[in-house]
């Protein structure tokens, strides 16, 4: 009988010892922080470029930038919650 990848993963996860599971959770949390980091870097870089091109729009650009950063950070918070749960 063949075992699907998901079934294999679940079976392997269930057999993990406490230390290994905790270590994997830490790696997962670290990886969850990478995505928002890339997103924030790109977002702020584009915002700085926009402010340099059109200084009169700085207000709108900074508003959108701040909300975008907050949304990107939400992903890291989800990683934090999943790490501790």
């Amino acid at each position, binding site marked *: 009988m063949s075992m699907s990848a998901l079934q294999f993963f679940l079976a392997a996860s269930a057999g993990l010892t406490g230390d290994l599971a905790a270590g994997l959770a830490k790696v997962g949390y670290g990886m969850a922080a990478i995505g928002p980091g890339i997103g924030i870097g790109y977002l702020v870089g584009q915002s700085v470029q926009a402010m*340099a091109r059109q200084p*009169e729009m700085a207000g709108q650009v900074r508003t959108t930038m701040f909300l975008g950063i907050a949304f990107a950070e939400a992903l890291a*918070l989800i990683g934090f*919650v999943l790490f*501790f749960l």
Partner: protein
Amino acid sequence: MEFAVPAPSTDRIESTIAHDLARKAVIVAPVLLVGIGVWRGLDAVLGALVALVIVVVNFLVAARVLGWTARVAPHALTGVALMSFLVRLGIITAVGAGIKALDVVDWPVFCFTLVGSYFLLLFWELRSVSLTLAYPGLKPRPGHHEE
């Protein structure tokens, strides 16, 4: 890179948004805490309260840091945004680990309130900001309901 001096109205725009978020959190908090208290008890109320405080303080600190950098040194904005993100995430992780180690709050409620209130406040603020940007002459005011 030369930057023109921004218009005076943009001086503290991040702080304005963050204070608006904090005001909305104060509006939401009593309902949320009473509901959670009835459902899960005092430990859960404490967990939800701590989560709400963390969310609001995170917004206020981010706004202060980003606003100050955008005004004083816009060329350093990317670096400051990334470092501030890492520092704030580290502080939140440390606080979360401390709270979990102390075992004084309802942990699942703390986690779900942290993420849930963050998204709730953010989408609420996004709605206000979107309306303001789309219709600058019709800024939403307290008690104003648009169709």
